[in-house]
């Protein structure tokens, strides 16, 4: 039987990998992929707590997180496609349209 702390450490490690992808990479597509990784690592934590406490609420919140993530990905990729149509770049430090 796997102890709870192993799951939490795995979640933390995946979250840190996702954070480093968001903060370090230049390509906005990779930034979005790393964001997905972060959300998924949080789901591991939720399901692990749900399992070890014998409570369904963690799984239910994880289901909601997955649903909201699907919506977020659709919107983010739509924004990205519209953005690339106007300004042909995918690099995060060149996307400064909102800057005054």
């Amino acid at each position, binding site marked *: 039987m796997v102890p709870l702390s192993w799951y939490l450490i795995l979640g933390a490690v995946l979250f840190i990998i996702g954070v480093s992808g968001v903060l370090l990479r*230049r390509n906005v597509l990779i930034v979005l*992929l790393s964001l997905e990784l972060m959300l998924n690592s949080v789901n591991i934590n939720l399901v692990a707590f749900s399992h070890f406490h014998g409570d369904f609420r963690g799984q239910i919140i994880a289901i909601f997180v997955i649903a909201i993530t699907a919506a977020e990905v*659709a919107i983010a990729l739509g924004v990205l496609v519209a953005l690339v149509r106007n300004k042909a770049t995918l690099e995060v430090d060149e996307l400064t349209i909102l800057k005054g």
Partner: protein
Amino acid sequence: MEQAFFLLFALVATGSGTMVVVARNPIHSALALMICFVQVAAIFLLLRSPILAVIQMFVYVGAVIILFLFVIMMLDVRKEVQTRFLKQGKRVAIVIILFLSAEMLALLLGSDLLSARSTVFISEEMSSVRGLSIALFTDYLFPFEIASVILLAALVGAIILTRRSKEEG
């Protein structure tokens, strides 16, 4: 036995997660993320929640990654191969990452609450879909409906965002 499986899944998940961040080609990143999501689904199975493993496979592997692959194919990403990482602000980002990881791991490894928690019972009905669906459709019915409205709004929003205006054709 279960620990060996957990270690295998965790190892592949962290390895492919690192590949997501390090890979030069965005297609490789997306495929590495797909591997990582499959491992996370297997970890959900180890946690006796098969319904979440199925949802994970359907939504993430079946929909999200495929959407990403389509968008990567639509956009021209050949130029991005040359520079992987940000040019400026890298030092601040590395400091933030190191601080965050030290903090999280110190919190997890140093807490005795978690080691006390690790010998908790596993009730049999936790792995059934029945209890989960009863909880989801009675106590959490209203958030469920809100989630469906959010999905509808995202659907309409994505269509409007990517639609060209009539003058452009």
